[in-house]
């Protein structure tokens, strides 16, 4: 007859086994779906293997229960918690597979994305990714490998990590933009976050950041008066407890440092996206963020969108930038300048401790603009999309679009039939330039009055261009 604590332990172990079996059924369901990239299967495979191992370990724990007699409950509790927390974590991970199936993915963009990732991420390291649709109106990239490794290692399941590639990304896009291939240029910003770490840009940029100490002291004093905690997130409610000044000072400094770090990372990802995709990224960003009133509003993780537009304008068109001023046509240039003038209309912020913090961060960040441009140019040397390529390809591809031909190639020699298959960067830049400057001609050509339909037809044509170019490359059809 088992004693009371032994009965409880047996019950807990059996309940954990039940969870593991339930998860197994869910994993089988997810496994049976079709996905356009290998990423979802990689994650499911890892979850299946881990779940099987946990089931086995729980059985062993049940069998050995007699031997564990005399060991304090705390030790059994901890050993069991490692397994149940990991089970819950696996369950949680599977949400990243939802929305990644073939029906929900912008397939035209998967190949260019794969090429981009291969070009910039891999050398010796294995990588994989998931692109999934989301109902959050946002583009987002999550580097998953490090977090998964941390949880698995600390739960005692490090051995199964051989199933996880060195780099594993989950990229979200808003489902309503599925057909809009041009706005998918936002993916490049997301990819650039990964490059930020790969090129170790934080260590190149952050040592140049200097906080205004006088302002920092003013902020600490303001927080001390308020006697509120600087919380990490809105979910953790601020409490009104009285804190010693050294704790307030410490938290304010960490909060400032974290905000500076995150803003630098965001602006650097913008700069890298411009280096890799040229003006197409700027157009996509303005299209995506412009309609929202929050363009003035900073957050702990992101600088205000208006600051980002101002920064990108300088990088695209000004001296020491990327040099697109010389190759963009007047209509495209005017379009960019229009966004810039809008960005310069900054509304005064309400006076609050939070806004003092953002103002200190803004001062610090502005000193880093030139460093960001310089460093991103340096790390992308030889891999950048250039104004020369833009100038060589874009106007010709716009002619393709004007004739309702997909912009997948440029015919160099009609007599010999020599063609040059286009890179995704040129195709997307041509799509944007044509959308901005040639939209009316296109509407006339189609004879369609509904502007939404015209724009969707243009997106489809650009998507076809990306797809055909990829097929031509895979079949070696380049001249």
């Amino acid at each position: 007859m088992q004693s009371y604590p032994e009965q409880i332990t047996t019950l807990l172990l059996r309940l954990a086994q039940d969870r593991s079996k339930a998860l197994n059924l869910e994993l089988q369901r997810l496994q049976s779906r079709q996905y356009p990239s290998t990423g979802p299967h990689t994650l499911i495979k890892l979850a299946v293997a881990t779940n099987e191992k946990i089931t086995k370990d729980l059985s062993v724990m049940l069998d050995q229960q007699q031997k564990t007699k005399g060991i304090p409950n705390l030790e059994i509790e901890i050993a069991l918690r490692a397994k149940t927390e990991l089970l819950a974590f696996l369950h949680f991970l599977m949400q990243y597979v939802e929305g990644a199936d073939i029906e929900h993915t912008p397939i035209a963009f998967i190949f260019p994305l794969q090429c981009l990732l291969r070009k910039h991420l891999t050398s010796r390291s294995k990588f994989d990714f998931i692109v999934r649709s989301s109902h959050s109106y946002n583009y987002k990239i999550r580097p998953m490998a490090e977090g998964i490794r941390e949880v698995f290692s600390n739960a005692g399941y490090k051995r199964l990590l051989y199933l996880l590639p060195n780099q594993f990304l989950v990229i979200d896009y808003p489902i309503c933009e599925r057909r809009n291939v041009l706005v998918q240029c936002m993916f490049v910003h997301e990819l650039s976050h990964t490059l930020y770490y790969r090129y170790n840009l934080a260590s190149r940029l952050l040592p140049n950041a200097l906080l205004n100490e006088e302002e920092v002291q003013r902020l600490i004093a303001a927080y001390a008066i308020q006697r509120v905690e600087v919380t990490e997130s809105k979910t953790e409610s601020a409490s009104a407890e009285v804190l010693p000044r050294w704790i307030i000072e410490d938290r304010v400094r960490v909060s400032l440092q974290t905000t500076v770090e995150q803003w630098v990372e965001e602006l650097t990802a913008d700069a890298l996206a411009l280096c890799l995709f040229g003006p197409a990224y700027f157009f996509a960003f303005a299209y995506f963020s412009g309609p929202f009133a929050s363009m003035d509003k900073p957050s702990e993780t992101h600088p205000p969108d208006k600051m980002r537009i101002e920064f990108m304008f300088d990088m695209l068109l000004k001296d020491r930038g990327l040099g697109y001023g010389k190759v963009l046509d007047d209509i495209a240039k005017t379009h960019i300048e229009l966004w810039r003038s809008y960005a310069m209309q900054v509304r005064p912020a309400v006076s609050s401790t939070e806004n003092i913090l953002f103002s200190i961060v803004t001062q610090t960040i502005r000193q880093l603009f030139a460093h960001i441009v310089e460093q991103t140019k340096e790390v992308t040397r030889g891999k950048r999309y250039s104004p020369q390529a833009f100038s060589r390809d874009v106007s010709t591809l716009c002619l393709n679009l004007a004739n309702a031909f997909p912009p997948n190639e440029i015919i160099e020699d009609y007599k010999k039939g020599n063609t040059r298959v286009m890179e995704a960067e040129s195709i997307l830049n041509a799509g944007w330039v044509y959308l901005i400057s040639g939209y009316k001609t296109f509407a006339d050509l189609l004879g369609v009055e509904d502007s939404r339909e015209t724009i969707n037809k243009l997106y489809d044509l650009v998507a076809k261009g990306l797809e055909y170019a990829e097929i031509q490359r895979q079949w070696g059809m380049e001249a």
Partner: protein
Amino acid sequence: MMRELDFAKYSHRLGEGLFADKVVLSLSQFARTRKADKDIKRNLGRAQSFLQEVIEGGRSTQDAFRSSQTAASARAFTQVVEASTIQVSSKEEFLRYLDGLQDTLSKTFAGKAVTKEELERVEGFFSRYGQLQFQRSKAMLESV
């Protein structure tokens, strides 16, 4: 816009909770048997490195931009302060308390005599730290 769960933060908190559990488990095993096998040594070694990082973070919050490691240490220090329940009047006093915990771990490694109370103090520290991390990872899941 929907709230997004920050995966990196969530997995880090969960990982930290599991790490603290491992330390507590090792300390409990060591207190019971007074023997340190390979696993116990590895876990206590990680506990020592963790405390070292936290102490460095507490000493360098003024110039945390020097490297990303320094910034991470500064954040680790802040989290440890939040998890601790001891009453101290200054940062220096808190750092001395952390030094004391590290000293206990060093003595354990060196095979020197360690009292039950000293071990319980280290265990209590990691237990509270782990609980806070588990609570926070759970709160993150519940908030989305």
